[in-house]
């Protein structure tokens, strides 16, 4: 064939469409960029888009369709951990490639997957350390608030172990879970308030998806300010904040590996490219589009795959996997990111930002350089020595 097909597997309808639609668009933009520069090995990339509709079994079916019916060379896709778990067997069985662009809970290493989002040590742990620092407010008590599924559960398990190692007692940790789509946070916010009467408290939020807006609205109206009880979130980025009036949220935090507000030429170009793309394609709300971490991770992932294919001179899965190790990309985060050959995760910088009135983040802390991922958290017993494929 004179084109190389690549699959895009993001929900365009259903509950996850909120987050995943823009990843599809970024992927298309990146593919267009690559094609404009001559494609890969002289062949144009041809995107094949499917809609798994936020339905996990449908993810598996669509993955199979992309790989065996459409014969794509690689798939960029998934957001939630459960969707990733549901497609994994398909990628293993058919020995194909998945690029997964979202921060996740770790505890996984698959030969057929490249993880371009953060592992817990590249997001959750540094954020918690920051909250405990003097600059971060010196929190002594923690509310671990999350949506009840594997990513928050596992992350909180790791954080609990981490806090314990820092001498935080169990009574100073409160772990609360709400279901997907939970929308009434009155009781929970009241409880946070009550809990915070016992000493400097911070909330670590792994709330995902739709629940964030009602949570923050309740928080703002109940008068809990970031200077009293800061909330650090791992799944709230620029895209999510588009749907929120951020004035009451001033100073609440998020930890990521990239923020739109990061200033460097690569990012300026990335933002400009995205805005131009949105305007050209007449995306809804094109005038207010923003970039965020998973979008950046998608962008980086596609470029890295391109480099690996060119190095391997083939789209063959095994050859590409072999060539991926050690690939580097100058990313919009301002750092040179490297794909770790042993664990298929990116080395990533960590940044902590405070929410500003305009829905952007003010970076208040960041690592000096990229950190190697530890998908198997060392704070969990039995994980020693599992850091390699």
């Amino acid at each position, binding site marked *: 064939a004179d084109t190389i097909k690549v699959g895009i597997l993001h929900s365009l309808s259903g509950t996850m469409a909120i987050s995943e639609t823009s990843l599809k668009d970024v992927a298309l933009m990146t593919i267009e960029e690559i094609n404009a520069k001559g494609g890969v090995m002289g062949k144009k990339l041809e995107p094949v888009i499917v809609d798994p509709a936020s339905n996990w079994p449908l993810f598996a079916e669509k993955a199979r369709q992309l790989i065996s019916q459409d014969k794509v060379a690689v798939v960029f896709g998934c957001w939630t951990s459960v969707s990733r778990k549901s497609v994994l067997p398909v990628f293993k069985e058919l020995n194909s490639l998945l690029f997964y662009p979202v921060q996740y809970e770790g505890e996984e290493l698959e030969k057929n997957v490249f993880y371009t989002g953060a592992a817990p040590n590249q997001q959750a742990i540094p954020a918690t350390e920051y909250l405990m620092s*003097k600059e971060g407010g010196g929190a002594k008590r923690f509310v671990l608030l999350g949506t009840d599924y594997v990513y928050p559960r596992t992350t909180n398990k790791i954080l609990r172990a981490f806090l314990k190692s820092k001498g935080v007692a169990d009574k100073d940790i409160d772990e609360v879970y709400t279901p997907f789509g*939970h*929308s009434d946070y009155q009781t929970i916010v009241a409880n946070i308030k*009550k809990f915070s009467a*016992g*000493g400097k408290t911070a909330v670590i939020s792994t709330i995902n998806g739709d629940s964030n807006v009602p949570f923050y609205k309740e928080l703002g109206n*109940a008068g809990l300010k970031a200077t009293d009880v800061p909330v650090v979130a791992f799944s709230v980025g620029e895209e999510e904040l588009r749907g929120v009036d951020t004035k009451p949220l001033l100073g609440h935090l998020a930890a990521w590996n990239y923020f739109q507000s990061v200033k460097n030429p690569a990012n300026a170009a990335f933002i400009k490219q995205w805005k131009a793309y949105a305007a050209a394609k007449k995306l*809804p709300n094109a005038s207010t589009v923003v970039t965020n971490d998973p979008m950046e991770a998608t962008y980086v992932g596609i470029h890295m795959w391109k480099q690996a294919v060119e190095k391997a001179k083939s789209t063959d899965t095994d050859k590409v996997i072999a060539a991926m190790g050690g690939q580097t990309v100058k990313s919009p985060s301002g750092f040179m990111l490297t794909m770790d050959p042993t664990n298929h995760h990116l080395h990533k910088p960590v940044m902590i930002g405070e929410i500003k009135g305009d829905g952007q983040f003010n970076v208040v802390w960041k690592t000096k350089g990229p950190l190697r991922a530890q998908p198997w958290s060392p704070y969990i017993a039995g994980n020693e020595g599992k850091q390699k494929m």
Partner: protein
Amino acid sequence: MKKLLVLIWLLAHSLGAMAAIDAALLAPLAGDDPDARIEAVNRIAALASDDAVKLLHALQNDALYAAPDGKVYIVEDDQAFDPASGQKVAMPDGIDGISVNNRLRGAVEDALSGLKLLSENRTERLAAASELQKSASAAQAPLINKALEKETDPEIKAMLQLVAATANLVSPDAALRLAAVKALATSSNASLKPVLLGMLEKNPDGSYAEPEETVRVEVVRTLSDLNARLARTEFVGNLFYGVSLGSVLLLAALGLAITFGLMGIINMAHGELLMIGAYTTYLCQLVFRNYFPLALDAYLLAALPAAFIVTATVGIVLERTVIRWLYGRPLETLLATWGISLMLMQLVRTIFGAQNVEVANPSWMSGGVTVMGSLVLSYNRIVIIFFALFVVAAVWAILNKTRLGLFVRAVTQNRRMADCVGVSTGRVDMMTFGLGSGIAGLGGVALSQLGNVGPDLGQGYIIDSFMVVVLGGVGQLAGTVIAAFGLGELNKFLEPSVGAVIAKITILVFIIIFIQKRPQGLFALKGRSVE
């Protein structure tokens, strides 16, 4: 700690003395040594001058900028001012906002509230005093005493006395401690609890943290008062949360109570009508933002009629094109309206994008009123409760006090006969469905003030809405109201002890069991007429 510094500075300098802000004082603000910045804030606060207040406000509101040379400017409406002189100056090149993090912002807030305690303005003093109530320490005693001396307002005075007492809890003088504990018997400040509990704890050597027996006795008494008061607050809080949740359920369900309850249409697109109401609110906000920015807070008032009209129109179009062919085949309506629901969601996704859109509370609905010491009742929820009651009253009046209401009920019970006695059933159907849809639109306006506005908004409410209508008894408005508030309260009293998920499951199980007892819902119709 930071508070202590502020207050010491405040005391050390003669209050009220006017002094220009020294440029040297400003320089650290532009630097990146966090401790130095905080110290600078405190020193500036100690000037206690209008300029200082202005500068601190600027810092708080991201209006303080630094030029590359380290000079600091206040920027307002694209105009730069020199904080040292207060003079307008030309905008320097390469000027950039001074970034403020939580720690610095906290320091600024504390400094401002310390300054405000001595302000001329009563409201400012009151706010400052209640701010201090949240966290007071021994080091604040001198300032508080000083403020107390000057204070004439009884409310603020009582507050400050509590604050002073809190500070005195750690006084070395047992008599002061005793007096403080006694004075605190009327406090409802939850953060006192750990302090008081700490006084009752034993040191490693077996002695009590609080050496005096008499004080400890008093502590126990105060603690039990405090606990009782907190329990009461919590109860009232739950009650309020329940009413609030109930009003949300009610607003979500009311339109359905008409389209499903009265007309018998299993309207799966009801949620999408809520969503359209919410998006209309968003559009109203956009219009106001762009064309009437000064009246932005009024956008919500404009959104009510707009949402009603838009959703009623959508409803009428749906009724005329699809639903009207399906009367008497209720299950078919489920199928068709499910299709409509999918299409409406996708339509909104295509127009507005899959992401949520931002709908902000107008300022009069932001924040809340504090009652019973610590319970914050947020304005948006209070407004929505009253709004829900208003809508119910309106619907009730339309259905029971107008001929339209009578016709609606007649048409749904016996369409053919209603036609034969001269009712234009098509028109009645259209108007009724329009009304139900319009009411759903109003519900959407209310929901936009609490949660997400996105294409999936409706999906989150559809099941609850059906539960409420069915639990209340299909076609029974009073039942719908009671069911909504009942479920709201049940949920909110269960949630603190079992968590949100189990509370929800319990409620669903409750509904299932309740229907066993009353197979026609809360307000069941009895007798022959039902068959």
